[in-house]
C-alpha cells in the first residue's frame, strides 16, 4: 500500500519539505531539491523578485515541487496577511506558511499573532500552515481556525539543536488530528528520522542542508532519513522497556500453554498508530 500525506487534495509521497533560504546559489538549491525529490519547498515572498532581469528564485523551483510561500519577515498578523495576499495576487498559489516573529534575538514565533493570521487567511481560501511553538492549546485553536497542518519548532531556527521540544511534539502528535510537521532546528538527518519515528507527518529543513559542505548530498541524506523514520513508524516501533526482554525467552517452551484470546498475550506492541 502506498503511503501518502494528503493535504488539501494534494498527495505527497515525500515527507521532507525544504526551505530555500541560505543556499550559496539558486542552482545549488535547485540541485538539492531535485536530489531529495522534494515535493514541497518553502519560499520567502520577500526574496521573490519577479522583475529581476537576472535571477528569480521561483525559476529554480523544480516543476514537480509545490511552492509554499512563507511570510518570513512579518512582525504581526497584519503584515502576514498583506504578504499572503500579495503572494496570491502574484500567482504564487495558496499554500502559505505563516511565520510571524517579533523576537530577532531567538527568532521564536509569536503564536498569538500567527493565530490571528491563520483565522483570516483560512477563511480567504488559503491552505495555511502555522509555524508555532509546540503548545497543545494553541495548536487546537489553530485547528479550529482552519489550519491545514501544524508546524511546531524542534528548536530555534538555524540553531541545529535538534528536537529539544520532543515531549511537547509527542503530545501534539497524539492529540491533534491534523498533520504535525516539525519545522526549525533540525541539524542532522537522524533528528529528522526521530521526528518521523514519533509520528510526525513531515519535517521542514533548511539550514542543515543549505549550509552543509555538500548541500546536494545532505538533501539526499535527509530525504532518506525521513523515509526511514516514516517506514519505522508505519512498522510499529516496539515500546521501550526498563528491563531486558530476551529475544529467545527462557520460558519459551511454555508458549503452548499460555492463555488464548484474552488480550494479555503480549504487552510489547507499540501503541503508536500509523496515520
Amino acid at each position, binding site marked *: 500500500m502506498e503511503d501518502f500525506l494528503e493535504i488539501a487534495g494534494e498527495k505527497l509521497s515525500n515527507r521532507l519539505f525544504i526551505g530555500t533560504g541560505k543556499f550559496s546559489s539558486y542552482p545549488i538549491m535547485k540541485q538539492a531539491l531535485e536530489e531529495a525529490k522534494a515535493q514541497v519547498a518553502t519560499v520567502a515572498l520577500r526574496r*521573490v523578485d519577479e522583475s529581476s532581469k537576472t535571477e528569480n528564485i521561483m525559476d529554480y523551483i523544480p516543476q514537480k515541487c509545490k511552492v509554499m510561500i512563507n511570510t518570513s519577515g512579518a512582525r504581526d498578523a497584519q503584515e502576514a496577511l498583506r504578504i499572503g495576499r500579495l503572494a496570491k495576487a502574484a500567482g504564487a498559489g495558496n499554500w502559505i506558511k505563516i511565520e510571524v516573529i517579533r523576537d530577532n534575538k531567538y527568532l521564536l514565533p509569536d503564536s498569538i499573532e500567527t493565530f490571528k493570521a491563520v483565522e483570516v487567511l483560512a477563511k480567504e481560501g488559503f491552505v495555511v500552515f502555522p509555524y508555532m511553538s509546540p503548545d497543545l492549546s494553541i495548536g487546537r485553536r489553530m485547528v479550529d481556525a482552519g489550519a491545514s497542518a501544524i508546524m511546531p519548532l524542534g528548536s530555534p531556527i538555524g540553531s541545529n539543536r535538534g528536537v529539544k521540544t520532543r515531549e511537547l511534539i509527542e503530545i501534539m502528535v497524539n492529540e491533534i488530528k491534523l498533520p504535525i510537521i516539525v519545522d526549525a532546528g533540525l541539524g542532522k538527518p537522524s533528528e529528522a528520522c526521530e521526528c518521523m519515528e514519533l509520528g510526525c507527518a513531515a519535517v521542514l529543513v533548511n*539550514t542543515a542542508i543549505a549550509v552543509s559542505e555538500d548541500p546536494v548530498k545532505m538533501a539526499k541524506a535527509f530525504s532518506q532519513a525521513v523515509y526511514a523514520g516514516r517506514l519505522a513508524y508505519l512498522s510499529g516501533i516496539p515500546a521501550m522497556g526498563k528491563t531486558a526482554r530476551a529475544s529467545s525467552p527462557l520460558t519459551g517452551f511454555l508458549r503452548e500453554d499460555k492463555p488464548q484470546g484474552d488480550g494479555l498475550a503480549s504487552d510489547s506492541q507499540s501503541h503508536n498508530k500509523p496515520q
Partner: protein
Amino acid sequence: MSFYGVYSQNKDLDLKKAFSFISPASIQESLEKNNLDTKQFLGLLSPQAENNLESMAQKAQAITRNYFGNTIQLYAPMYLSNYCDNSCLYCGFNLNNDIQRRQLTLEEVEKEAQFISSSGLKHILILTGESRLKSPVSYIQDCVNVLKKYFTSISIEVYPLAENEYARLVVGGVDGLTIYQEVYDEQLYAKIHICGPKKDYKFRLDAPERGAKARMRSVSIGALLGLGNWRREAFFLGLHAKYLLDKFPDVEIGISVPRIRPQNHQPQVGDFKPICQVSDRNVIQIILAFRIFLPRLGIAISTRENPEFRENLLSLGITRMSAGSATNVGGHTLYKEEKEQSSQFEIQDQRTVGQIKAVLEGKGYQPVFKDWLYL
C-alpha cells in the same frame, strides 16, 4: 532610561583595570558559551584576545553560517544632497569645506534610481548632508515617493529626526534607518563637532531608539573608527546594539564600523588624519567580538575598505555590503567625474554591482538583491 543612562553608568570605565582581569581561561570560557554578558564581550575586545583571533574567527564563521546562511545582502547608497549645517572635522561635507554643493531634483533622483535599479538591486540607502533647512523631511519623502517605483526597501541616513518625523517616513515607505553616533566618548564628541546641530550629543544618541519606536523595520548604528580609543568605542557600540535589541526585539538591529583611512589615498578637501590608529587586525577583532556577542546582529562592511580586505571579512561575520557605491551627490550618473572633489569620504572599493556579484558567487555566497517588500 534611554541609552544615555547606560552610557553614563559606564563612561568612566577604566579599560586598563578591566583588561587586567582578562585571562586566557576567561576568553576560552567566552568562546565556549552561547550567551555572553557585556563583560565577556569586553574581554573579546581586549589586547589579550588578540591571541585568540583564529578561534574567534572559527566560532564567528559558524554562527554567521547558521543564522544567515551563505548569503550576503547587497544595497547601494544614493546621495541626495551635500548641504550641511555642521562643522565636523572628519567629514568632507563640513560646511567650511569648499566643495560643489548641490541637491538632486526629483527628476535627477529618478535618473539615478533608474541606473541603480538596472543592476537588479532592490535595496537603496539614501543619504543627505545634515541640513534640515535644505533637505527637510518633506523633500526626503518626495524622493522616497520616486524611489518606491524602483526599490522594495528604502533606508535613510540623514540628520537625526523626531519620532513623529520617523513615523511619517515609515508610513511613506521607508523601512530602514542608519545613523552613526560617530564617537561615543562625549567629551571627544564635543571637540570634533565644532558647530551646528550635530553638536547635540544626546539627540543623536537617542535617534536610533526614536526610529525603532516609530516602527522602522531595521535600525543600523555605528562608530567611526579612528576618532576615539577603538576598544572603548566598540564596547559602547556593543552596549548600544544590545540595548536596542533588548528593548526592541522585533527590530532588526545592525552595526557598521567604518574606518578613517589615511593610507594610500588621494588627498581630499578637508583631509582629516585619524586621532587613533586602527589596524586591519583591530577591525577584524571588533567584527568577531560583535558576531560572538550578538549572533543575530546584521554587520555591514564599508566601501571605505579596499576590495581585498572586504572579501577577507566576508567569512567572519559580514551580512551586508554596498555595491556600485558613490559618495557624492548624483555620483552614479550625473556627476561621476566629481567623485574626488565633492565626496563625503574616499571609496576604496569602486567595483560595480556586477563585479561584486561575480566575486561573491566565486566565493560561494549568494548575493541577495531583494530581501524585503514594501507592504
